[in-house]
């Protein structure tokens, strides 16, 4: 085995292992986290990097071929589709009124009382229609 093949193989194995580690961490997070929304954190983020790293490992192993370019496109699409689908699922849960889990030692108990609307420097102060949303979704009366 020549030196370059060995380095390529080692790099491939390393990238695969790191990818598998993040996938594993994401899965453990998925099992351990208390509610739906925090589980979205585990799956939405770890899958993106885990799959990305594993695909990069395949590119390293395959070298500059057409298949590698296809894998590169796969990475791009995963990078686009993963956060979008995470957002779609989270939005669906939010729309049916699923309340996020709060820890008991949290200093703020009521959901959605951290209102930072308008603090990010938008000059227009017209009343926004998103305001009444927290009450509508039944988050206040806990």
């Amino acid at each position, binding site marked *: 085995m020549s030196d370059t093949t060995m380095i390529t193989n080692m790099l491939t194995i390393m990238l695969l292992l790191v990818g598998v580690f993040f996938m594993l961490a994401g899965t453990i*997070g998925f099992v351990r986290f208390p509610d739906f929304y925090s589980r979205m954190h585990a799956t939405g983020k770890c899958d993106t990097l885990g799959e990305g790293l594993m695909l990069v490992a395949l590119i390293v192993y395959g070298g500059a071929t057409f298949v590698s370019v296809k894998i590169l496109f796969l990475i791009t699409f995963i990078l686009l589709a993963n*956060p979008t689908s995470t957002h779609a699922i989270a939005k669906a849960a939010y729309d049916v009124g699923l309340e*996020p889990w709060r820890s008991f030692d949290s200093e703020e108990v009521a959901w959605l009382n951290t209102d930072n609307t308008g603090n990010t420097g*938008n000059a227009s102060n017209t009343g926004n229609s998103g305001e009444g949303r927290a009450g509508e979704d039944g988050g206040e009366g806990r």
Partner: protein
Amino acid sequence: MNIKHFIATYIIVFAFWLLLSAHFDSFHVGAGIICSLVVAYGTHDLLFTGTGNHTLTKTLRFIAYLPWLIYQIVLANIDVAKRALSPRMPIDPRVVKFKTILRGDVARTALANSITLTPGTVTIDIVDDVFYVHAIAKEPADDLLEGAMERRIAHVFMED
């Protein structure tokens, strides 16, 4: 029909065909030419909407933005892995909302996806100007509300 948009779409679609087929005999290339014509005719007004300007600058700035985003994705994964594997599981989830300064649809999509990919935050909903974001602890929420990422996106899409 905008002929310039049609030709640009045709070139992109055909290049994509060549890339995915990886066969360069006359049958595959010929089928590609015909299929690309049909697809480009159907979709040329979707790829180039003709509403934006400074497309090249925006694209270049977006490419320059990507390395930072990938760095943030790595940080986000280390963050989640730490929280998931730590025995104490240091999470304190909350929903925060903030008003965005961004106006364009693409810019808002980019911000929403960037929020989801960066440490500790997931975008739940966008209602008019207000982003609803689920944060897994206090620090990520505070970082987000500080607005550094929003300014970066605003710079990329020339809205600052």
